[in-house]
């Protein structure tokens, strides 16, 4: 593959992609860790940070969609049809979960009666009324959906590394900053 002729994702798309990745890489283990802590001021703080990270993921979704519409991704690199299909399905599911995981977290917080005040500054509206049963149900959803997201991200990452290391093609570099030609 010729690096010079590589067409990359737009700068905005690359920025949002890696920002979202970073946020998920922090929010996920933080979610697992804080969940098992005994009740303490530190736990309350970590819960808030987790929520803010997650809401930021949600907030990045809209600009991400707009960028994708304004600057569509570069045409796919040659690969077997099943790989293209697998990639589109994974990407679609990733988008879905990037929406549903934070949304389920927000819904859970509302149901549990702990509203979200983003960055301690912006109070977000409660999506549902306080309801204990609904709260624990949404917790199950949030846990299952975030596990799903984790599995998909792992697949996505494995595919990117395989392209870079084994196929030595430009798949990963398209999503890395660099000069566009």
């Amino acid at each position, binding site marked *: 593959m010729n690096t010079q002729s590589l067409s990359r994702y737009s700068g905005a798309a690359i920025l949002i992609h890696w920002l979202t990745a970073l946020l998920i890489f922090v929010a996920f283990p933080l979610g697992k860790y804080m969940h098992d802590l005994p009740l303490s*001021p530190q736990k*309350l703080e970590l819960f808030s940070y987790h929520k803010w990270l997650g809401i930021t993921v949600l907030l990045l979704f809209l600009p991400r969609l707009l960028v994708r519409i304004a600057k569509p991704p570069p045409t796919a690199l040659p690969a077997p049809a099943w790989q293209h299909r697998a990639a589109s399905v994974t990407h679609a599911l990733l988008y879905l979960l990037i929406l549903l995981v934070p949304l389920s977290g927000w819904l859970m917080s509302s149901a549990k009666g702990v509203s979200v005040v983003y960055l*301690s500054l912006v109070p977000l509206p409660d999506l549902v009324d306080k309801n204990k049963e609904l709260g624990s149900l949404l917790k199950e959803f949030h846990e299952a959906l975030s596990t799903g997201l984790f599995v998909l991200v792992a697949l996505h990452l494995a595919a990117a590394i395989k392209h870079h290391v084994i196929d030595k093609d430009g798949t990963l570099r398209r999503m890395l900053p660099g000069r566009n030609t």
Partner: protein
Amino acid sequence: MKSLSRWFLYGLIWVSSVANSAELSQVQHDKSSVSFGYKQMGVAMDGKFRKFVAKLNFDPSKPAAANAQIDIDLASIDTGTSEGDEEVAGKQWFNSKAFPSAKFVSTSVKSLGADRFEVAGKLSIKGKSVDAIAPFTFKPQGNVGAFDGTLLIKRLDFAIGEGPWADVSTVANEVQIKFHIVANAAPAAAAPKK
């Protein structure tokens, strides 16, 4: 003469029943509530106490003669989660095994005009007593009246939340105790039912 004394008796009954209906003294606990609000990481939270005993004598035309007392069973707290309920029963919070109740005893009541009043008194929690003032409104409805007010306290005045919990940047120091008390006049024993 007979009819005159009867009229006199009717008069007496009327006066005493008016006096009785003006002073509220029977709290209807099933219609009353004691709840609280505070901020946690900047988020407004609330909870309530399921069990409390309130006593009062209140005549809106004679507020200075009024008095009130409320005992709150701290183990009956509902913070919204069982984890929270267990935590606040602990030594660092209420230590409710050693100090099972919170008590407010009024020292004076005064009118603030219209339906607004103010009660001053002593609030005792966890072995500490602090002077407290609560403005409230009084809404009469026939023989029944509703009192609605808020008592603002600082939890650290009572050592509620010690150790790491004393950090007020996670759980705020300010706590509003909101009461809604419904009371009626004592049944007028002397007055015949119509």
